[in-house]
């Protein structure tokens, strides 16, 4: 058994919250630069130019890319041979969020659903824990903004709807989302599982680096097809008109019940933030 003290976890989470919000990944930066070269609409190119400059300012000044520093979402892979000492894992993560959002000048955006009273420290975090083999602890922070989350959906298709039904639903969702989720976006799609599982794998799909090909050739083909159809709508960056509404479509698939075809579409804005650490 390897021991990990909760203090170490809190410290790591604190830093992850800040870094994820200040430093946009190289994969997204590369997609911005490609967008600047290939976007046909002048207004659209202006958007990519602004987003590149914005990300550079954020990184250099250690300030958030976006004022909406998101719901603090974590994916944790806990090795079975790890023993966490001096406290609870979830408490340690929440404490890290509390410290990171306060010391890092991040916005606190979490409130009671009825009274709308802010919790004041951006807790509680949403924490997904998976047990894995080994004696390491991997923590991925993936803060998610409200604007693009509001445009995301989960639905239960009929098995008869098939692949075509899935494609149509995702394309339609993008059209309806339009300019709201700060395009250029990345679209995470979860197919299968259960009502609660599909959105989880849709969110996980967003963690795959932008610009990589899905290892499953059939899914890769579906991704390409959906991407083309969405970009052919002409909605473009920020909805100003153009060729690039989505920079990528990422699909994850899971077996489902013989009676159902769950489908989740997680629209993620260009502020696609995630950082990980292995302890």
């Amino acid at each position: 058994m390897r021991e990990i003290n909760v203090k170490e976890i809190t410290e790591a989470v604190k830093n992850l919250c800040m870094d994820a919000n200040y430093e946009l990944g190289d994969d997204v930066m590369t997609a911005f630069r490609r967008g600047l070269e290939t976007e046909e609409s002048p207004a659209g190119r202006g958007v990519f130019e602004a987003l590149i400059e914005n990300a550079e300012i954020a990184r250099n000044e250690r300030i958030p890319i976006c004022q909406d520093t998101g719901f603090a979402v974590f994916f944790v892979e806990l090795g079975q041979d790890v023993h966490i000492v001096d406290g609870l894992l979830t408490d340690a993560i929440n404490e890290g969020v509390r410290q990171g959002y306060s010391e890092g000048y991040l916005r606190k955006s979490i409130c009671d659903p009825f009274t709308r009273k802010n919790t004041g420290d951006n807790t509680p975090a949403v924490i997904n824990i998976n047990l894995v083999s080994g004696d390491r602890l991997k923590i991925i922070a993936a803060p998610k903004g409200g604007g693009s989350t509001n445009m995301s959906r989960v639905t239960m298709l009929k098995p008869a709807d098939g692949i075509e039904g899935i494609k149509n639903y995702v394309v339609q969702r993008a059209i309806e989302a339009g300019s709201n989720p700060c395009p250029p976006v990345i679209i995470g799609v979860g197919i299968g599982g259960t009502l609660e599982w599909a959105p989880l794998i849709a969110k996980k799909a967003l963690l795959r680096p932008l610009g990589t090909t899905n290892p499953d050739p059939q899914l890769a083909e579906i991704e390409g097809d959906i991407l083309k159809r969405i970009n052919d709508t002409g909605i473009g960056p920020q909805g100003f008109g153009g060729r690039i509404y989505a920079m990528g479509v990422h699909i994850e698939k899971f077996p489902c019940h013989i009676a159902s075809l769950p489908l989740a579409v997680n629209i993620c804005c260009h502020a696609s933030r995630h950082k990980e650490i292995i302890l």
Partner: protein
Amino acid sequence: MSDIIRLTTPLSDSDVGELKAGDQVLINGIVYTARDAAHKRLIDLLDQGKELPFDISGQIIYYVGPAPARPGKVIGPAGPTTSYRMDPYAPGLMERGLKGMIGKGSRSGEVIGAMKRYRCVYFAAIGGAAALIARSIKKVDIIAYEDLGTEAIRRLEVEDFKAVVVNDIHGNDLYKDGKERYCRE
């Protein structure tokens, strides 16, 4: 797209009348911030027949909830929030003289109708370009609802704040026109 137009608040009816969807503008002067919770309070005041906490005539409201400022900065990152959530409140404010709104995302038919009726324009700022946008904000004062934190009403002094006209008072809509221009279906 046309040349860049400089605007200084407060806006007059003729300033507003000249703007066309797709115009790029640089806004200078005072802009007020308000988002969900502040809008609710403003409309509650109007419903009770009370005065608003600031003179809204000719003014622009920016839908934003900034991040906290680092020491030495006037404001933290401050990009637009999605506007449709303010749709239920916007016509009531236009009736009181509001001349501009800055946000992101499309508005309801009702809001667009009210914009024509009361002569008010809707601008978009680049959603998510919050660190960049903050650079055009030079001074910040909280003028109402401090208890709302990021949602408090702030009086911003802005210099060359970049925005694009989405809906003008003549019924044009950049989101529709732009999409049609580049559509390949």
